[in-house]
Structure formats: C-alpha cells, structure tokens
C-alpha cells in the first residue's frame, strides 16, 4: 500500500518539473506562447487546460476498455472535444472578456498535443487513479509554465502583476514583451534555463 501511495505521488509530481509538458517535453507550445501576455490570461488558460485534461482522462480512463483500439484516436478526440466545447461555452457565457482575450486558443485545446499525448502515453495503459493523478500533475506543470511566462511578460511588458503596477511611474514598459517576439524570447530563455539546470544534475 505504501509503495502504491508513493507511485501516485510520483505520477502527480513528475509533471511539475522532471517531465514538465511545456518546458521539458515541448508540447502545447501554441497556447503557451499566444495567451501568456498577462497573468490573468495565463491563469484562465491553465485552468481551462486543467479542466479539459482532468475530465478527458477521467472519462477515457473509465471507458477505454470498451473502445476498440483501431478507432481509439477518433474516440479520444470526441471526448476531448466535448469538454473543450463545455469550457469554451462556459467562458463565453460567464467571462466574455476572458473568452475574447483567449480567442481561438480555447477551442484549439482540442488539438493540443498535451491532452491527446497523455491519453495515448498514459491513460491508455494505466488504471484510473494513476491516470487522474497524471492528468492533474501534467496540467499543473502546464499551469506553472504558462504562469511563469505570464508573470515575466506582464512585469516587463506592462510593469504590473494582475493589473497592479509594481514599479514607479518612471518605469518604461518594454512593449515588445507582450507582443509575439517577446513570447518567443521568453519561452526560449525558460527552456534554455531548464536545460541548464537539468544538465548539471
């Protein structure tokens, strides 16, 4: 039982750092680059991914034995698309501003490699509970990565966090950090930093 618990803990925490889906596995980069210009957008996107990944892993973990393996990918996509549609419609109804800011990137979670990748690489061959832990850990890793991007870009690009100005009035924001080039540069530096740390170990 003890080893079982340790395994569950491992499945949960591996997504944070060692197998971080964004910074180590380089999956799902589109949305990480596109909507990380402010902290609020980053958090919303992270939660949307968490919602979709958790429920897809849960449902697919429940029904995976019923699906013939030849048609599993279309079946997985239908499950994922259902939860993405739920998330998309929910945001549109309750948080129209955020929905507008995230634009097509919420529907695009469907083709996000992280979600389908986890189903193929993990949920397919593991039991329900480890799959859920894996899904939670991976989405937490995604949230950490996109939040880091959001914090760096909002501080440098707007001089604020969550809309609160943190520098004096003499601070001149580096506008380019909230534009596309800033996204590429920030992510490149984060991945480079990650490589630098893990190489030393």
């Amino acid at each position: 039982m003890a080893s079982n618990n340790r395994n569950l803990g491992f499945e949960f925490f591996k997504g944070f750092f060692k197998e971080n889906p964004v910074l180590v596995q380089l999956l799902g980069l589109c949305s990480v680059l596109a909507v990380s210009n402010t902290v609020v957008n980053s958090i919303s996107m992270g939660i949307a991914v968490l919602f979709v990944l958790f429920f897809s892993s849960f449902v697919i973990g429940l029904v995976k034995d019923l699906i013939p393996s030849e048609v599993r990918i279309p079946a997985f996509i239908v499950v994922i698309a259902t939860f993405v549609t739920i998330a998309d419609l929910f945001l549109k109804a309750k948080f129209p501003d955020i929905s507008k800011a995230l634009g097509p990137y919420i529907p695009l979670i469907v083709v996000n490699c992280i979600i389908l990748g986890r189903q193929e690489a993990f949920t397919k061959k593991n039991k329900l509970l480890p799959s859920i832990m894996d899904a939670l850990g991976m989405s937490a890793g995604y949230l950490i990565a996109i939040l880091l991007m959001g914090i760096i870009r909002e501080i440098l690009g707007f001089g604020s966090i969550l809309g609160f100005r943190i520098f004096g009035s003499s601070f001149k924001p580096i506008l380019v950090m909230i534009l596309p080039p800033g996204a590429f540069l920030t992510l490149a530096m984060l991945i480079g930093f990650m490589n630098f740390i893990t190489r030393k170990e």
Partner: protein
Amino acid sequence: MVRPLIIFIAAAITNNFILTYFLGLCPFLGVSAKVSSAIGMGFAATFVMTMTAIITNVVDHLILRPLHLDFLQMIVFIFVIAVLVQFVEMVIKKASPSLYKALGIFLPLITTNCIVLGLALLGAMRNYNLIENTFFGFGAGVGFTIALLLISGIREELEVRDVPKALKGAPITLLIAGLMAFAFMGFSGIITLQ
C-alpha cells in the same frame, strides 16, 4: 476584389500564422532542420489549408449555421479535416505517385496540426465568405511555407556554429523565431485590416 487580396497578404506576411498566432509550431520545431523537408511540408500544408478553408466554409455556411448547430463547429471541423487529409492522400497516391512520394509522409502530420483547425476556426470567427476564406487559407499556407523555409535555411547554418549547450535545439530555434517575428513586425504598416 481588393479585400481577398488584402486578406491574402495579411495571412501570409503581416499576420503570419507561425510568427504572430503561434500556430503550427510543432512542424516548425520538428521539420525545420532541413530545407528540403521544409519545402515538402510547406507545399503539403498549403494544399491542405487551402482545401480546408474552402470546405469548412461551405460546411459552416450551408449546414451548421442554417441548422443552428454552431456549437458543433469544432467537432465537425476536426472530422472534416481528418477526412479531407485522408482523401487528399488517396487522390495524390493514385494521380501522381511522385508527388505522393514527396508529400506523403507530411500529410498525416498535418491532420493533428493546430494550424489547420486554427485556420478553420479563425475564418469562421471572422465571418469570411467563400472567396475571402479561400484566399485566407492559401495565404496562411504561403506564410507557413515562408517562415518554415527561412528558419530551415538558418538552422542548416547553425549546425556548424557554436551554440551554447543549454540553448541547443528548441531554445535557439525559438530565439531565432523571436527575431524573425521582430522582422515581420516591420511589415505590419503596409496594410490595415480590421
């Protein structure tokens, strides 16, 4: 006739799909190491994207909207794209084996690519009509090819350069993409749309 042309240029250059919308980054990081494979991928993607733009627009305007099934848009688009790519693959295989050899391995990769679905969704979001959407899809494909070609040329040079160890591979490609995005921002004044 001017508007479709503007849409074309916007999709290809000023709002380049890779460099401003960040769509299609997987092949950008994966296939961009060699110029020859970049050309193959670019042509295959341009072809699929133009076809996708036409067909999703027709499906959207003739089936989904009259029946008020907008909420199924995403799922329907995914299936249309998957079927389309399969179909294109079969047709090319029969009609031109040499073309199939050149594009074949890239076609399945494109199905699950966010750039194709992103194109369909963006076109639907902006309410483009059939002609505008066709130019939009074609322009997006051309822009994708341009960005892929440029980066593959640079990456072939980088093979022999001394890159810091931690930045090898993906980080240096992203850095270059960042600099390219800077350069493409310079075009942003030439046309205005929306």
